[in-house]
């Protein structure tokens, strides 16, 4: 297959991100400067984001058998780039300027985040198991470093090692699964696998085993029950902006590739696997929500809540027809906005870095009476996570319920209702803590002028977005609706 100009235009977001990585690397080698590195990364990411517009014009286009740039890929690329931008901005506030703040080298964090983002871009456009694996590793390996970035903090180091070991185990499962699948289907491309599996009414035992093992590997990355054990520890240990990246960009990319795999080879999710997915969904929703109940650490709480949220998303994946694709898109967008907002508040509360993050719930007591706008942001995010109207989260939940009702998945819908009821309890607990009368203890606080810094501006914009999408979601729905699949034969 020849690469034409068109292919390069289609690949532009990925190419520009990769170029940014090299430029940032060289710039660091030439002169260490925090602000310069930050500006270069932001400029590169913005350029990559803009280059999606020309890429949309040439879509859908298969660039090499590995990747397919279509509207679906473009939507998720945009989502990943936006999430990365937000994380980079948060990281800038978190690492701090001059003497105060993070004591080690600050610049490499941007490098690692950019590499992980490039991996995410590969992943969302992968249509081939090789592309999937390359993307997944490019996404995961820099994240090991990111999680352990505050390595003189014991927890961060521990989290990094834990994540690395488990993630490597997950990758091993994935590879084994791919091998088994290849042995059965004789093809590595998603559609090829789909065709091979569709020839028989029921996928063979070998293929089912292969798919299950792949599912194990992917479920690790998505932290679905029973592969969720790393999540709270890693979320707690990782520096707040990294946790934000892990919760948003990383998970979105993996989920997008799962969606593409199951859409292009529908047989892959039929039969036993569908039941397995349903069971995982129920377990994730219930266990995620139940374990979140007793948490007193905000980052751990968000970790468990993200387990539950991906359980909700699986409902749409199980339905996998009708509204499902749209629902997944809308839900992921609202989830990314909400998570970025929640982690953003934690980041700003812990900025600049001073040894540990402000993640204990008691540190947020009475925040409203000190920092009303920051509290308003976190309140909107908690309501959005709980799926209360007037926030973006409600639109996402509405879509998931609509999908479930459409596909008659009554058990899953029942679990969702139950899970939301449990979820409300701990979201409310966080929310009301913010408004309680403040104690005398004040270890951490956001800087007084937080609204005027880039991180603060970005956070307020996210909060406003979460509110506006909750009140007037039509533009988002239009956008996602056009991001369907063009099946290439």
């Amino acid at each position, binding site marked *: 297959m020849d690469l034409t100009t068109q292919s390069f235009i289609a690949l532009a977001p990925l190419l520009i991100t990769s170029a940014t990585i090299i430029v940032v690397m060289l710039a660091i080698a030439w002169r260490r400067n925090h602000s310069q590195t930050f500006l270069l990364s932001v400029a590169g990411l913005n350029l990559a984001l803009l280059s999606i517009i020309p890429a949309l014009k040439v879509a859908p286009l298969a660039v090499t058998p590995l990747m397919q740039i279509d509207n679906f890929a473009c939507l998720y690329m945009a989502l990943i780039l936006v999430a990365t931008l937000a994380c980079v901005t948060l990281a800038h506030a978190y690492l701090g300027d001059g003497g105060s703040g993070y004591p080690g080298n600050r610049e490499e964090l941007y490098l690692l985040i950019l590499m992980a983002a490039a991996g995410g871009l590969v992943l969302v456009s992968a249509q081939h198991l090789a592309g999937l694996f390359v993307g997944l590793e490019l996404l995961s390996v820099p994240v090991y470093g990111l999680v352990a970035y505050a390595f003189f903090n014991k927890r961060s180091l521990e989290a990094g090692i834990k994540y690395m070991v488990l993630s490597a185990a997950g990758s091993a499962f994935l590879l084994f699964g791919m091998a088994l699948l290849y042995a059965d289907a004789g093809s590595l491309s998603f559609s090829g696998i789909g065709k091979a599996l569709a020839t028989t009414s029921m996928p063979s035992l070998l293929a089912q085993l292969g798919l299950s093992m792949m599912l194990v590997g992917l479920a690790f990355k998505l932290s679905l029950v029973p592969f969720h054990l790393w999540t709270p520890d890693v979320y707690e240990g990782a520096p707040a902006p990294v946790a934000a990246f892990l919760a948003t960009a990383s998970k979105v990319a993996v989920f997008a590739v799962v969606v593409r795999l199951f859409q292009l080879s529908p047989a892959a999710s039929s039969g036993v696997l569908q039941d397995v997915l349903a069971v995982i969904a129920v377990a994730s929703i219930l266990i995620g929500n139940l374990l979140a109940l007793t948490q007193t650490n905000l980052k751990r709480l968000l970790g468990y809540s993200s387990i539950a949220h991906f359980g909700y998303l699986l409902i749409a994946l199980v339905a996998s027809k009708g509204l499902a694709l749209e629902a997944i898109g809308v839900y992921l967008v609202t989830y990314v906005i909400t998570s970025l907002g929640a982690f953003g508040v934690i980041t700003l509360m812990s900025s600049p870095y001073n040894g540990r993050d402000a993640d204990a719930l008691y540190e947020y007591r009475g925040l409203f009476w000190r920092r009303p706008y920051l509290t308003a942001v976190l309140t909107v995010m908690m309501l959005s996570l709980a799926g209360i109207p007037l926030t973006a989260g409600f639109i996402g939940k509405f879509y998931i319920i609509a999908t479930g*009702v459409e596909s008659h998945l009554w058990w899953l819908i029942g679990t969702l209702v139950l899970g*939301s*009821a449990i979820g*409300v309890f701990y979201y*409310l607990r966080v929310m009301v803590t913010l*408004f309680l009368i403040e104690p005398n203890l004040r270890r951490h606080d956001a800087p007084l002028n937080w609204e005027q810094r880039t991180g603060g501006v970005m956070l307020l914009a996210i909060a406003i977005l979460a509110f506006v999408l909750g009140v007037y979601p039509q533009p988002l729905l*239009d956008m996602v609706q056009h991001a369907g699949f063009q099946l290439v034969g």
Partner: protein
Amino acid sequence: MILPWLILIPFIGGLLCWVGERFGATLPRWIALLTMSTLLALGLWLWTTGNYTLAPAPGADPAWALEFKLSWIERFGISVHLALDGLSLLMILLTGLLGVLSVLCSWKEIQRHVGFFHLNLMWILGGVVGVFLALDLFLFFFFWEMMLVPMYFLIALWGHSSTDGKKTRIYAATKFFIFTQASGLIMLVAILGLVLVNYNSTGVITFDYSQLLHTQMSKGTEYVLMLGFFIAFAVKLPIVPFHSWLPDAHAQAPTAGSVDLAGILLKTAAYGMLRFALPLFPNASAEWAPVAMTLGLIGIFYGAFLAFAQTDIKRLVAFSSVSHMGFVLIGIYSGSQQALQGAVIQMLAHGLSAAALFILCGQLYERMHTRDMREMGGLWSRIAYLPGISLFFAAASLGLPVTGNFVGEFLILIGTFPVAPVVTVIATSGLVFGSVYSLIMIHRAYFGPSKSDTVLAGMDGREMIMVVGLAGLLILLGVFPQPFLDTSAATMHGVQQWFSSAFTQLASAR
């Protein structure tokens, strides 16, 4: 254009209250008072000018006194569709009136964070007005869930924890929120089910009430969807197995919260049944009616017995609400015009009398700093006026003639008798227990030996105006209910027609 303003005024007023706090602690109170008075005045103006013989009825396209429609989310055919008929107007009048009162009754009680308090108060009322006006099911659900958040804050931040420290205000607020939110989600599932059934038969995705009224569905589907709606309304009304959030929320809430909760929020459930559950699913509702009436009966007695056993005066009034709402439920599901009209009057009368009782409890609490009736007793000699007025509202609550409650209960019972004589007979005996708990409340709090001889402060002008005004309105409702009956007549006639055709079908099927 006036309908969206009815919703927007409280929301904007609430924001102004918050901002206004910077310029003085009393400014938010005045802004809130002005906002609610405007709402009430607009409601009264609509009452005098509108034509309330227009109301939705089976067979024809629904006609409304006023209507407003604006496209919102085209993807699902969702629009901001508001409409007003007699029933919604009466409910909005009640909302405006109780809004004014809840601002007044927190004038002295709330001293912390006044601006934020009034923001929450105004937003609850805005959400409630939205519920009463929404005709798009998505919009209805939107407002239904939205009003929970400010109510949660109101209880959690300005409430009172119980004296033994076992039940905190946050516990009560969270319980309230989870009960209503979870049941609301079940309703959302039912709404989506209805929309999809309609979509499968007509090919149009719409959440619009007037179009969904024509949905063709099988018997089983209709029954299941009806149950989804019924559960949400049953929790909010509340009906007995789902009532346990109510006494906790009431006991822990500040006075204004209790007034809104008992006076208006419970009415949204009854309104939802009359507006949505019955017209959308008439056949299933007719089949369900005996069960609903039985649940109503259980509510009447259970509420009355538990009210009798309470020592906390606010919990007593809360359980009496459960009992009164049992009557409303029976009236709604009897399907006779008289009983339906009675249910409307009962809703209004209960809104007024329960609000008054909660305001009086609040005034008592401000003086005694306890709600425990074991520590009261003999108050008749220690506080001027307040005991006498309490006696009046206790009498109203037990359904004494001359008060609106009598008219409501009388109409419900007389209207239900031809349809379900057994239920009526049992329900009537429930009135006896109503008298028991009402009088025991008065007896425990105001009569008997006095615990102390110190005379407590009498009622000031503000406190007097609130309760005397309510008493006047309750008497007006009791002796001259005709204007209210006329206003809601057309709407209730429509509901009755839906129901009666379903009943005849049901009877012929047997």
